[in-house]
Structures are given as C-alpha cells and as structure tokens.
C-alpha cells in the first residue's frame, strides 16, 4: 500500500483547468446536488442490472427445460468442454472484478496512477477472456462440427439432441461474451477520460462505480454459466 499512498504524479495545468477535470465537474442543472445525482445514477444502474439478470434468465430457463427433457444430451454436452479453459476464464474474470473494484476505491482516493493501472488490468483481463474463449474454445469446436442447431455436424455425437445443447452453449456464452466486449469498451472510455482529463476523483466517480457494477454482473453471470455448462454432468 505504500506505493499507492506515494502517488505523486504531476498534473499538467491543461488538465487541471479543463471543465472535465473532476474538481471542475458539476451536477446537471436539474439536480439539487452532486450526491443526489450520484445516488440516482447508481439506482438506475441497479435497475439496469435487474434487466440483465432477467435477460439471462431466459437462457437459464431454456437450459433447465431442455436439461429436464434431454438429460443424456446435457450430460454428454459438458464432457465436450474442457473445464480448465472455463476455470481459467473464471479466474481471469474474478481478477478483473477485483481490479474494477480497486479502480473505484482508487478514484475515490484520487490515486490517479494506480487508478489507471487497475483500469488497464481490467481491460486486459476482458480481452484475455475473449481470447481464451475464441482461441481455445470456439475456434477448436466449430471446425469439429460442434456447432449450434443445423450447423451441427459432429460425427461422434451420442444423442440426437446434442445440437440443442450446443445451441444453448453458443447463445449463452455468446451473449455473455458480447457483454464482455461492451464492458471492455466502457472501461476504455473511462480510461481515456482519466488519462485525458483526470475526470474521476473523490467527488466524481459515478461512471467508474457504475462500470464496475456492470462488470460485476457480467462476472456473476459467468459464475453461473461456468458450472452449468462445464462442471455439471
């Protein structure tokens, strides 16, 4: 922690005078105070997260229904996946959730350098997650015929309903991966504004907090997808 507390990066005057610097940013005119604006933004984000949960609820519901209908296909399905890649991605996302939470705290403490370092680690983790997903999972499985629905052509399938399992696998992980991409973009915006204007600090960190909240839900959904798809037989 000593390194964090000795963050003495000098700030160019151009940034300090910018209206986008955190000291110069003000609440929008329809709010009585910045605190109320922050509370409202956070409340709105929680509502949005509830919509995310309901969106994925459809996929989990489909998973449950077809698991009950075709237990054989579902048991086979998990055997096709290598749990080690799933576990690696789980670790990557958990690490990034930790750095995202760190970023919020460091913005509150005005530790600009370490704040940015944590943002960078979060973005790198997001990209690493996508890389593992594509390189070691999608790219290996699709050419082998382990594809969704009618594209399924894997010759060694044991159960006629395995294509459905792959459909839910690709839809679930695909929509989740899309959320990872969105998250990486949002953190990139936060990082860019932090570098360019030092927009976030002890009184102005709404976007950082909300991005982190979003990132945690993306993480949480993966925490459910991972055992359901990789571990349960």
């Amino acid at each position, binding site marked *: 922690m000593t390194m964090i507390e000795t963050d003495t990066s000098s700030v160019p005057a151009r940034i300090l005078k910018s209206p986008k610097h955190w000291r110069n940013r003000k609440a*929008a*005119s*329809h709010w009585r105070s910045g605190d*109320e604006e922050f*509370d*409202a*933004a956070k*409340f*709105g984000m929680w*509502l*949005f997260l*509830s*919509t*995310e949960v*309901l*969106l*994925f*609820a*459809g*996929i989990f*519901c*489909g998973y449950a*229904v*077809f698991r009950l*209908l*075709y237990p054989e296909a579902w048991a086979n399905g998990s055997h096709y996946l290598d749990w080690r890649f799933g576990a690696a991605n789980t670790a990557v996302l958990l690490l990034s959730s930790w750095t995202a939470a760190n970023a919020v705290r460091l913005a509150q403490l005005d530790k600009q350098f370490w704040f940015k370092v944590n943002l960078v680690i979060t973005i790198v983790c997001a990209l690493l997650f996508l890389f593992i997903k594509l390189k070691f999972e999608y790219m290996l499985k699709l050419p082998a015929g382990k594809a*969704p*629905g*009618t*594209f399924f052509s894997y010759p060694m399938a044991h159960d*006629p*309903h395995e*294509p*459905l399992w792959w*459909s*839910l696998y*690709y*839809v679930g992980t695909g*929509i989740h991966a899309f959320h990872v991409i969105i998250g990486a973009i949002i953190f990139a915006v936060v990082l860019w504004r932090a570098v360019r204007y030092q927009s976030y600090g002890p009184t102005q960190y709404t976007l950082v907090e909300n991005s982190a909240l979003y990132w945690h839900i993306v993480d949480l959904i993966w925490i459910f997808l991972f055992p359901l798809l990789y571990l349960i037989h």
Partner: protein
Amino acid sequence: MSTLDANAGHHDEGSYLSGPPGMMARIWQWATTVDHKKIGVMYLFAVLTMFFIGGMAAMAVRYDLLDPIRTQTVETLNAAGDLETTTITTGESLKEIMSGLGMGKDLTESQIYNRAFTLHGAVMVFMFIVPSIPASLGNFFLPIMLGAKDVAFPRLNLLSWYIYVFGCLFGIMSILLGGVDTGWTFYTPYSTSTDADHWRVVLMVMAAFILGFSSILTGLNFVVTVHKLRAPGMGWFDMPLMIWALYATSIIQVLATPVIGITLLLLVFERIMHIGIFDPAMGGDPVLYQHFFWFYSHPVVYVMILPAMGIISEILAVHSRKHIFGYRAIAFSSLGIAGVSFLVWGHHIFTAMGELAAILFSGLTFLVAIPTAIKVFNWIATLYKGSIVINTSMCYALMFLFTFSIGGLTGLPLATLATDLHLHDSYYVVAHFHYVMMGGTVIAFMGGIHHWWPKMFGKMFNEKGAMLGMALVFIGFNVTFFTQFFLGTQGMPRRYANYVDEFQTLHQISTYGSWILLAGFLVHLVVFVVSLYAGKKAPANPWGGLTLEWECESPPIEHNFHHEPIVKHGPYDFESVVPPHCDPKEFPLPENGGHH
C-alpha cells in the same frame, strides 16, 4: 412562438416551444434536445404517426370482411353460340385495391389479409400502444407533476426516443419489403419457417426487439425520477395518481421487457442459424416460445392500461372538482395490478399446458379483477355529488368507465376454463381485447390529450368540434366492436379472411362502425391542427387543477418552474384550496368545506 407571461417575474425564460430563428436551427434544437417536454411532444407525434399506420391496416382488415370471398361458376353463351364456363370471384376487396396500386399481384386475398392484420397488431402493440401514454404524456408531465426540472436521465431519455424511431424504421422497412403474416405474436414454428428466403420477419422481430430497449430506458428513467426528484414536501402519498400509475407501469416495463428481448433474440437466431430451441423437428419446444412470449406480453397489457387508469384518476377528480375517493386504494391497486400481472401469462395458452397449471392460471387471472374493480368503484364514488363539468376530456373519462367496464367484465368468461374453450381464438377475444385496449387505453389517451393539450401547446381547442369527434368515436367504437362479441359467441374465428354467409350482416355493421370511428379521429385531427394554428391562447389553469403542472405557465417555460415548487397541499384538495392562477369566483370552494 409564445411569449413570456406577465407574471413571470424577474426570470427571463421563454416557453419551451420558443427557439432560435430559422428552420434548420429549430430542427437541430429539437433533434438534440434533452428537455423532457420536447421529447414528450416528439413521442406524441411519433406514436400518433404509428397509430395512423396501424389504423389504416385495421381499416383494411375491416374492409376485407365487408364481403365474404365467394367463387361462382357461371355458364354463358359466347358470341359463337357455344356454352362457356367462367369463374367469378367476389369479395376480394383488398386484392382489388392492391392491384389498383400495382402491387401484390402474386398474392391471394387471404395472404394480403394475413399481412394486414399482422401489420395492424404488430404496429399497434409494439409501436403505438406500449409507448403511447408513458412516453408522450408521461414524459411531458411526470417530471412537472413531481415538481422537477427534468427526468433523472435526460440524455438517456433522448436516446430512448431515437431507439424508438430506429425500431419503427425497422418495422416500416419490413412492411415496405412486403410485410409479415405471422400474426403479431410471431408464434413458432410458423414464424421461423414462413418466408424462409426473406428478411421481412427478421426485420419485424428486430423492430420489436429494438423497441424493447426504448421501453426499458423510459421505465428505468421514470422509476428513478419518482424516487429521487420529488419536490420538497411531496411524500409518496402526496403524488398525483397519474404518477403512481406511471410508476407501476415503469416497474413492469423494466422487469418484463428483458424477457421478450431474449425471446425475440432467440427467435432471430432460430430463423438465421436454426438453433432449434423452438423447433420441434430438432427437439425444441414451440410452447416454450409461447411461455416466454406471454411472460412479457401479458404484463405488457398492463403497461398499456395502467397509465390510462392514471389519466382517468386525474380527469375525473379535476373535472368533477372532487377529492379523489380512495386515494391509497387506487395507488396500491396500481401496484397490485403490476404484481399480479407477472403471474397470469398462462391464460393465453390454456390448451398448451396441464390441467392443474390451467386451473391455477385461471384462478390467478381472476385476481386481476379485484384491483381493477377497486379502481372503477373509487372513480364512480369520486363522481358522486361532484360538480361535474361535461367537456371533452370528462366525456372521454366517462366513456372509459363504460367501455372499459365492458372490456373488463367480458374478460372473466375468458379466464374461466370451461367458457374459454368455446370462446378462445374467436371474435369474442378480439372484441374483449379491443374494449380494454381501445375502449380503455386509447379512449383515456384521447381524454388525456384533451385534458393537457392547453398545457402542452398553450392553445385552447374548439370544444364543440372535439365533442363531435368524441361522439363519433364513441358511436363508431361501440358499433365496430360490440357486434364482434356476437360474432365470436356464434363461432366466427379470429384471423380469417373469409366467413360463412350467416355472419355477413354483423361483419358489415362492424365495418360501417369502423368508418364512423375513422371519421371521429379525423375530426379530432382537424380540431388539433386548427387549435395549433388558430387556437385561443390557453390560460395557465383552464380546468382549475391542483397538481403541479397547473402552476406552470401554458406552455411551460424551459425549466418548468420559476422557483422550485414546495408542495403544501394534496393533489386533490379541491374542497380547501383555490386552484393556482384561478379566479376564486370561477372555482369557488364549497361552503361546508366539502363535507356533505
């Protein structure tokens, strides 16, 4: 456009309608505005445009049903004296119109009809009635009634308008490419197998998917606004009932819409990539689609009706100068309806589930009647011994009580398993649905537009003209749809282009009714246009209302209020408060303080 009111004091703020000179500058100002009032007005025009498109499709549906399709073989002698057999087909009304326009040559009458009713349903549900009241009147009045300067997230609000327009463009593109014949419910496997080589269905489904985001963002914005932006002194039970209704609506929008989002996304994947989840040929389950679909689409009918109920609470109280009867009962019944709405989706698919599940869903469906009836009884009690003013908005509110009650009560036989077996998928369902949605939501929307028109645009409208339009709508609506109850009970199925001869008289009466209805709406359109160009300037509080929007000028200034309002009286304290901007002689307080 309109100038500063004399009592505006030291603030030099113009009306929200005033803007920079020059056409392009004005358009740019509106296109980039984050003002909830401008966004509300833009929504109003957008949803009314979609109402027009959906209405035209409805006219086409009724026009087809004017005559049944009949093919006769006639034997005639030709010039050479030989006997010649010719086939004459009558009743292909839509085909005649289409060929007159040079379109649809390869389509049969039934195919055109199927597209017309799908177009009507999809446009009216997704593009008109879901966003209608919350996005237009709600956007305009929710912040003002709370005493706020704007909604919690103004930029998100503008974004949701653009998403709405973008979604509508997808729908219109699908229509221009030939339309969709799946029905607005997009039931699988028909919706995933029909028109296999074409993008029309995907475009229409994507339109509904995109519109869902707009709906979620509006709902989210409203919930946060109600929680965080109430004026000082306004507790939860000091809020106007319109706000309670919009709040309950928003909760449903936020919680139900994501489910239709994933459902429609899966449908698109199903169509493009054949993922098989809803395809029985691959082991998928089409009934799963129906469960997902109605898990959203049943709650969403309360998204359609709850704001209408909010409008009725406002109109009845203001135009009868009576404190609303049973404020808390009405407020909580809105939340009650929102809660129950998530538990009744199964009544759309009684025949696709087990007996026990059907009985449970039937029982739960009856629960909806309780909070709804609480509202209706409270409204009627509000009118009792009130100083009722008969004007256009009041007439629409009374019409609502009449038609919505018919719509609500005719829903009960549909919730009953035994009678539903006979009535389901018949014109009885069509009539019931239109009595609640049109006789409920659209009628209340019309009442609300008239109630708030002077506030929104600062102009009065011609009361006699509006009353004429109202009368035509009332007659036209009932003639069109009451007949359909009879058609349905006698066995006329819904979604058919053709019918047996016995049904023709009732179908003709229904079609003539639709023309009267159209005439009524055209009269309203003329009245509104005349009002905008030549209307008398509206006073700040023409009806003597007590909610905060009547403290603003007409039209309101950019930031709604000159000073942040402090709420000192309830929204319906007509017996003890002289309405703002009003002459006490014109709106006298009752001598006995309102006690009878």
